[in-house]
């Protein structure tokens, strides 16, 4: 049975039975796309399996990468208040050479508790870490997050293409909460409680769609940067 199991897993592109330590909840959008694809496969509409109409991009492989930030930046947990930064890291090593990146979207969900004691509006600053911590030279991707909205989507396709073609450049992201319109980042905010419980209310995941030409030969082959 082990041999049979190994050969079926290999067929699925896996080298062993996955045993994830923590499992993130399955977003409803993925279940919806799965059911659409099951219908398309059952009715033989294979062209639908190479386009993700929910995201409006060609693609036959969708991954929701789990944030490994806490594992890759353990020193962050020790940081004393005020703690307004959270590191995020996504391990993209599972993306293979013959896959073409079509979409990469960072989904940030800020829990209610991260804002309880803070009345002023907040800005969320998402930065790409480019230098070695602790003084990373960061390229800013500034986003304003009003009080009512708690989900933020950031298009990271160019960043993920760079990380994928040059894996050493993938040092993760930093998310920072700042008072709205405040350029002086020395004035920070003091969220409730300790750093750790502030951070656990900020959940991040990276939704990536890729296209493999072997399974979807009809779609044009966009020039790829050599790794």
């Amino acid at each position, binding site marked *: 049975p082990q041999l049979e*199991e190994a050969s079926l897993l290999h*067929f*699925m*592109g*896996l080298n*062993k*039975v*996955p*045993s*994830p*330590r*923590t*499992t*993130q909840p*399955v977003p409803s959008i*993925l*279940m919806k*796309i*799965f059911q659409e*694809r*099951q219908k398309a*496969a*059952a009715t*033989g509409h*294979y062209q639908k*399996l190479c386009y993700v109409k929910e995201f409006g991009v060609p693609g*036959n*492989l*969708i*991954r*929701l*990468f*789990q944030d*490994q930030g806490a594992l890759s930046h353990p020193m962050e947990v020790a940081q004393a208040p005020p703690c307004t930064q959270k590191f995020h890291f996504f*391990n993209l090593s*599972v993306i293979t050479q013959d896959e073409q990146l079509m979409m990469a979207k960072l989904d940030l969900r800020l829990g209610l508790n991260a804002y309880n004691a803070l009345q002023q509006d907040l800005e969320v600053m998402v930065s790409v870490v480019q230098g070695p911590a602790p003084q990373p030279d960061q390229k800013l991707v500034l986003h304003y997050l009003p009080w009512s909205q708690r989900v933020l989507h950031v298009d990271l396709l160019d960043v993920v293409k760079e990380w994928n073609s040059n894996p050493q450049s993938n040092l993760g992201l930093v998310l920072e909460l700042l008072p709205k319109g405040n350029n002086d980042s020395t004035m920070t905010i003091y969220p409730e409680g300790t750093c750790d419980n502030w951070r656990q209310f900020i959940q991040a995941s990276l939704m990536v769609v890729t296209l493999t030409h072997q*399974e979807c030969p009809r779609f044009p082959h966009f020039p790829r940067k050599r790794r």
Partner: protein
Amino acid sequence: ATLSTMESTSKHLCQRHQMVINFEDLGWHKWIIAPKEFRTNYCKGDCPFSLMSFFNSSNYAFLQTLMNSRTPEVPKAACVPTKLSSISMLYYDSYGNIILQHHEGMVVDECGCG
């Protein structure tokens, strides 16, 4: 008698037989999110030369079975899948990432002598 003989023979002729793959039986339900199981078929049965025209067989199957009646070490044509389809699967990988991918050739729709 003929009918029953024919009928009993037809049971041994190449045809598809339903099979249900249940991932819990394989012990994979912890990492496969969906589907929990899927229906497919397996191919089993004989490919006698006299009935080859009933099957959607390929030309080489005819020739191979013809040769089998002259030189037994050439095996008869085998009962194999002749139409396959894919399924989509939603599962966790070892990093806890969620993957939605469709896998070609996972479902056997039809069988024949090939």
